[in-house]
């Protein structure tokens, strides 16, 4: 197969320490927008190929710097567990898109500061804190399901997948429901739009809104996460405005999109797996295991690290400054760790998947996300009879940094 990256001009964009045979055409692995093949199938097939490869840089609106792409869970785990060598500084570039320069906290902070921010924020998202939120989470899920159950159909993402986690997040953060549409619009602009202008507009929307929120909570702290952050102490001092922005920004970006994306993918699977639906309805105690298995089979996040010192990893020599792409999808679909990885098997044990990442940057909201996904499935299966995709409908998985479905048309008998 001819490889366009080996032309002299293309080769010149790739560091000389990268072996020719590991170079892949730019953008061909993760971000092939509009590709006919489901991203999960495409990524899964990479496990038949080399242990590590190098994705050439791409230009255009979704430009990506060149990066090593690790394929094995073992290597991805090793990278994520060593933040001193594989830094997440500057990971998202979201503040920079809006013309500002600070870190998203804690995800873009390396040790030892990272640990201090986690100690500060962990109590807000601890298993015990989430236990206390569960009644409210369940009531919200039940009321959204009740709103559509008599219709015999819905577009799931709009009716439930988005409003359920977003409204819970907004309540935790202390944001008024009236702001939801605006926040969703910026989120979509920042993360899912094809032009740089739209992404900048989203980034600037968030910046202005969150700067306003910092000022409001400084003037009058409230009993919510936004208020908690301005009152928090770190090494005996209050956080600076930029640090508060770092926390707010990460909470908003992570809180608006991730569980919504997972819900769409999980319910897409359920709509096409009627046998699993019926098993879970008959025995709801299986739902937590089903959620774990769907988190594994449909992991959504691809993230990056920057190499801080020359190091050997996955059998190649990486140099300081290199980028490394770590896909939780590739890790969760690695046949070396999960037998028959493309199959959904809720009795899989152990099921130590990587949907929430490895290492100290383990998803801060993982306990909340798990609870929301479990409660959503419990309430939905309890109230709605067997549902499937609407006749003739399709819900293709949209490729990107975060995999998702745009819409999921469901139907059931009433």
């Amino acid at each position, binding site marked *: 197969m001819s490889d366009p990256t080996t032309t002299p001009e293309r080769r010149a964009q790739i560091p000389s320490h990268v072996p020719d045979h590991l170079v892949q055409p730019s953008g061909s692995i993760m971000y092939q927008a509009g590709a006919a093949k489901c991203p999960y199938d495409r990524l899964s097939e990479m496990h038949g190929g080399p242990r590590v490869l190098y994705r050439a840089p791409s230009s255009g609106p979704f430009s990506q710097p060149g990066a090593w792409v690790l394929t094995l869970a073992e290597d991805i*785990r090793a990278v994520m*567990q060593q933040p001193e060598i594989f830094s997440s500084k500057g990971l998202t570039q979201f503040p920079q898109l809006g013309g500002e320069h600070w870190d998203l906290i804690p995800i873009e902070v390396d040790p030892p500061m990272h640990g201090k921010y986690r100690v500060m924020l*962990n*109590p807000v998202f*601890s*298993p*015990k804190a989430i236990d206390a939120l569960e009644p409210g989470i369940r009531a919200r899920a039940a009321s959204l399901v009740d709103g559509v159950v008599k219709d015999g159909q819905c577009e799931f993402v709009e009716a439930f997948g988005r409003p359920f986690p977003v409204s819970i997040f907004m309540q935790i953060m202390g944001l008024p429901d009236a702001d939801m549409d605006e926040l969703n619009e910026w989120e979509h602009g920042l993360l899912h739009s094809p032009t740089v202008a739209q992404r900048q507009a989203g980034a600037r929307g968030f910046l202005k809104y969150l700067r306003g929120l910092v000022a409001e909570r400084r003037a009058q702290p409230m009993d919510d996460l936004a208020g908690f952050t301005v009152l928090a102490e770190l090494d005996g001092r209050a956080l600076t405005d930029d640090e508060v922005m770092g926390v707010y920004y990460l909470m908003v970006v992570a809180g608006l999109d991730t569980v919504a994306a997972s819900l769409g993918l999980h319910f897409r699977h359920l709509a096409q797996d009627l046998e699993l639906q019926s098993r879970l309805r008959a025995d709801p105690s299986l739902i*937590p295991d089903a959620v774990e298995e769907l988190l594994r089979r449909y992991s959504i996040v691809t993230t990056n690290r920057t190499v801080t010192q020359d190091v050997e990893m996955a059998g190649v020599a990486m140099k300081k400054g290199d980028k490394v792409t770590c896909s939780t999808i590739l890790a969760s679909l690695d046949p070396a760790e999960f037998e028959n990885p493309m199959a959904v098997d809720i009795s899989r*044990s*152990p*099921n*130590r*998947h*990587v949907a*929430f990442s*490895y*290492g*100290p940057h*383990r998803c801060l909201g*993982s*306990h909340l996300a798990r609870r929301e996904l479990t409660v959503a499935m419990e309430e939905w299966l309890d109230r709605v009879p067997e549902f499937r995709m609407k006749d003739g409908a399709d819900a293709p998985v949209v490729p990107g940094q975060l995999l998702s479905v745009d819409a999921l048309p469901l139907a059931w008998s009433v």
Partner: protein
Amino acid sequence: MVGVKILVDSEKCVGHARCLAAAREFFVLDDVGYNRMPPTVVPREFEQMARRGAQACPERAIEIVEDDH
């Protein structure tokens, strides 16, 4: 006591809390969901439960070793 020893690498534990999910009421986590237990010997009858918790850890932070003292 003849049994197994549970060794938790607290550097590696990042608070997934999956050991607890796999073996409820066996592992005790701290207030924010991290496993900070010191090296602990448990009788043989609890070996399976200890191993289930260890195998659930995405970080491989828990090791179960023979203890024959």
